[in-house]
């Protein structure tokens, strides 16, 4: 047996065979009809449509036998496909190729074989249409031609089948695509009835596409929607394709914004068959579009609203985009600036030193050529009208994907004109500051007091030491600055200073050390030191400033003044005495006149014979009393005039003191027609220096007398009250109080409201001193309706100064 040869184009041939997708398919009548015809025409019991596969022949139709396939080695057809003419084997027993073929020797006992090749339009021989007989025989040429014709019919059938399959595939593909489209795809006939609907109809209208088919448009999409769509359809039926976007209220699913395309379907002769409909929901798209527009608007607003100026320059240095702030800074409007470059004559870039900025210095140029961001370059933009806006420029290069060189530069401009103006002001104020610093230094150096400063944060290290401090302490500034108190003073003194320093630095007030002895270059001096804390901008203590004054001389001078004051006080007393002299003289002259008169009367009585002894005695007693009265006045004067400062306190009768006082004052009061009202509890004793209390009271009474001289109904009241262990003596006059401005100064030495020469201004200050010596007070009572002074004294003085009552015998 001879094995069939494999055709040269075997691979392509097999591929073509696969392309028909026929192997192992069920029998089909059109093929079976052909094998029936072939067996009838050739008058053979067997006819086959045999397709030669890689390793087998497979029968698409087998008439007369049951077999569906045989191995390729034994297949007659495998030989036939190598022939260009039909293969006719009249008697297999006589043919070397087939005589020992199992199909010959065994069932189906092939004796005769005739096979016409199945040749595809491309020329591939897929197999044969063959007829077989069990006995040797031959075919007439007509029969052979018929067999060949039938073979061509087989191929034609195969072709049809293939095309139908392709069509089915295409349709399925189309259907899949249309089905997967979110939009509607349909075909509507001229009666507005759906002929095709894709699966989107189910989603949109809850109707299966097959249910839609045959239904009218309004039945599917709803009447409202159809009302809108109808005019478009009429246009399409007139042959004009329609494309529109509308918001359409569909039957179910509500309003949708849709893009609709309607394409007319008409044949070549122009008869209208229907309309292809494409409907796409673009609601979301529109929504997204509007969002995108909003976003773009927002970005633009942001861009324009930025306080910083922003410009974008292209690689040629041309400004291609600019925001409002940048326009404002440069001083041009958008059309003027867009497309211009940094060398526009309408503005000039200048450096901080006001020189014109060269092109190589421009940040945009540097950013473009180096690819490096130029940060915060300070530059001026001089407008045409010569005004300059100062800006801080940052130029950032922008690269296009992987480009090495930037294609754009983003420039941001911060307007720092105001900042710069303030800076300039600060420079000026700094200059002024340094001027005032110099002034301060020179003031410090010329001050006649020692000024020193200690840095609180550095443990009170000396940081200021003026010239006078150098002189006073004999330490140069050079030696002192940077050192501490402990480097200069004894530990005790340094500790004292430190404690005061801390006190001052914690206080917001001036710490005053009125007198402290200190060792200086000139020996021990008395210093009056004031310390105050200087705070920094944050209000934290920074420098402790001290001012020390050498008050040694001052204290001596004060002592002198004090001495002089004492003398003055004494002379004041004398002047008060002089003031009283008139009254006193009268006071003495009156009793003298009495004595004189009585003496004359007595003399006359003695001359008379009948001497009235009784009357004589009475008159003489009167003279004695009058003399006693004079001696009292003299005693009062003596008491008043002597210095009693060092007298011991003695237990004294307040009544007696008042009486002594009034004795001296009575005459003046009488003369000035001042009524005296005295109210004092009897038998009241206090520890005091009575002379001094008399001095206070007579001072108060005398002031009262002077103050009310112009009042018509004059009175002065002297009242004594006891309050626990203290005595309150008030002197009230009929005046209506003392003006506020005067009250504060009342007790100051040398303050007086009296005419020049009438008072020394010492009375109250001395009186106050006396009251305080007695552990008492002398004060003006501002709450009284009438002018009132109050002398408050303790009834008992502390034991050590109290002497037992000494009553003169």
């Amino acid at each position, binding site marked *: 047996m001879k094995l069939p040869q494999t055709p040269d184009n075997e691979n392509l041939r097999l591929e073509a065979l696969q392309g028909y997708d026929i192997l192992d398919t069920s029998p089909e009548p059109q093929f079976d009809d052909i094998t029936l015809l072939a067996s009838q025409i050739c008058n053979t019991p067997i006819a086959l449509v045999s397709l030669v596969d890689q390793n087998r022949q497979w029968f698409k139709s087998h008439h007369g036998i049951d077999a569906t396939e045989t191995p390729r080695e034994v297949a007659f057809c495998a030989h036939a496909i190598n022939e260009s003419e039909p293969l006719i084997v009249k008697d297999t027993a006589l043919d070397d190729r087939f005589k020992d073929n199992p199909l010959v020797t065994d069932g189906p006992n092939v004796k005769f074989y005739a096979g016409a090749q199945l040749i595809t339009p491309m020329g591939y021989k897929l197999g044969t249409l063959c007829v077989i007989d069990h006995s040797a025989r031959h075919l007439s040429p007509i029969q052979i031609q018929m067999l060949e014709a039938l073979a061509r019919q087989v191929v034609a059938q195969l072709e049809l089948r293939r095309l139908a399959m392709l069509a089915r595939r295409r349709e399925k593909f189309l259907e899949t695509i249309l089905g997967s489209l979110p939009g509607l795809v349909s075909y509507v006939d001229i009666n507005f009835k759906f002929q095709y609907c894709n699966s989107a109809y189910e989603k949109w209208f809850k109707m299966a596409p097959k249910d839609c088919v045959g239904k009218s448009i309004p039945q599917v999409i709803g009447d409202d929607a159809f009302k809108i769509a109808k005019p478009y359809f009429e246009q399409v039926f007139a042959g004009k394709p329609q494309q529109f976007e509308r918001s359409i209220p569909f039957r179910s699913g509500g309003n949708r914004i849709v893009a609709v395309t309607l394409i007319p379907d008409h044949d070549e002769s122009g008869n209208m068959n229907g309309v292809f409909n494409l409907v796409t929901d673009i609601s979301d798209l529109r929504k997204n579009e509007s969002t995108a527009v909003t976003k773009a608007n927002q970005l633009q607003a942001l861009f324009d609203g930025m306080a910083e100026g922003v410009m974008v320059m292209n690689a040629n240095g041309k400004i291609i985009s600019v925001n409002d702030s940048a326009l404002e800074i440069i001083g041009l409007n958008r059309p003027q600036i867009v497309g211009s470059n940094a060398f526009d004559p309408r503005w000039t870039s200048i450096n901080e030193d006001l020189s014109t900025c060269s092109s190589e210095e421009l940040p945009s140029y540097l950013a473009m050529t180096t690819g490096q961001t130029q940060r915060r370059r300070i530059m001026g933009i001089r407008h045409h009208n010569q005004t300059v806006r100062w800006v801080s420029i940052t130029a950032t290069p922008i690269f296009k994907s992987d480009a090495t060189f930037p294609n754009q530069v983003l420039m941001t401009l911060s307007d720092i004109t105001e900042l710069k103006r303030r800076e300039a002001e600060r420079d000026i104020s700094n200059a002024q500051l340094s001027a005032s610093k110099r002034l301060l230094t020179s003031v410090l150096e010329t001050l006649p007091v020692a000024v020193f400063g200690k840095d609180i944060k550095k443990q009170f290290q000396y940081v200021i030491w003026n010239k006078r401090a150098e002189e006073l302490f004999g330490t140069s500034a050079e030696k002192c600055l940077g050192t501490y108190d402990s480097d200069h003073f004894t530990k005790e003194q340094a500790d004292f200073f430190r404690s005061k320093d801390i006190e001052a630095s914690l206080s917001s007030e001036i710490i005053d050390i009125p007198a402290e002895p200190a060792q200086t270059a000139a020996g021990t001096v008395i210093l009056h030191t004031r310390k105050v804390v200087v705070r920094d901008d944050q209000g934290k203590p920074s420098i402790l400033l001290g001012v020390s004054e050498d008050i040694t001389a001052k204290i001596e001078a004060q002592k002198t003044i004090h001495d002089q004051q004492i003398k003055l006080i004494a002379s004041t007393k004398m002047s008060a005495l002089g003031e009283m002299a*008139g*009254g006193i003289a*009268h006071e003495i002259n*009156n009793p003298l006149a*009495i004595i*004189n008169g009585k003496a004359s009367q007595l003399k006359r009585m003695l001359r008379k014979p009948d001497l009235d002894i009784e009357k004589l005695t009475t008159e003489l007693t009167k003279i004695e009393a009058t003399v006693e009265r004079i001696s009292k006045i003299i005693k009062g004067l003596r008491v008043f005039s002597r210095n009693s400062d060092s007298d011991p306190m003695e237990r004294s009768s307040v009544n007696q003191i008042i009486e002594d006082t009034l004795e001296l004052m009575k005459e003046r009061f*009488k*003369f000035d*027609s001042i009524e005296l009202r005295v109210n004092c509890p009897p038998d009241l004793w206090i520890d005091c220096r009575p002379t001094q209390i008399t001095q206070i009271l007579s001072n108060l009474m005398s002031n009262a007398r002077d103050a009310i001289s112009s009042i018509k109904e004059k009175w002065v009241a002297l009242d004594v009250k006891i309050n626990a262990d203290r005595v309150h003596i008030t002197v009230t006059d009929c005046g209506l109080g003392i003006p506020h401005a005067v009250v504060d100064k009342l007790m100051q030495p040398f303050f007086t409201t009296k005419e020049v020469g009438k008072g020394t201004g010492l009375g109250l200050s001395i009186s106050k001193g006396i009251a305080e010596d007695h552990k008492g007070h002398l004060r003006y009572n501002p709450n009284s309706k009438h002018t009132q002074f109050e002398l408050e004294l303790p009834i008992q003085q502390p034991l050590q100064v109290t002497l037992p009552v000494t009553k003169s015998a």
Partner: protein
Amino acid sequence: MPFTGLTILIVDDEEALRDILAEDFRSLGANVIEAKNGATALVQIKSHKCDAIITDLRMPGGDGLSLLRKIQYLKLPIEPKFFLCSGTDQISQDDIRSLNISEVFEKPYNRRSLARTVARALGIADIDLTDF
């Protein structure tokens, strides 16, 4: 009696002094009325025709000078002679003239000299003061 028929007002707050003066002039025959201050004196003058007024200078409730000013102002039917007794106070010459003061005495004054001066001012020529 040299002062018979004449009325003399004595004004002094010091009772002892008033007494002495009153007794002196009564002993000379005068009708003496007394007052302890200027205010009282003014009342006395209105009810008595006074020929002379001897007054103290300093008195509570109306001093001597203001008493005399008030009397002048009253324009009485007879103009009394004024005599002033003061301590050591200086009386201005203007006051003496304008108030028509006859004499100013300083305390302690001489009784005889006072009596003689008052008598002379009232036109009493010879007055015997040997027993005065």
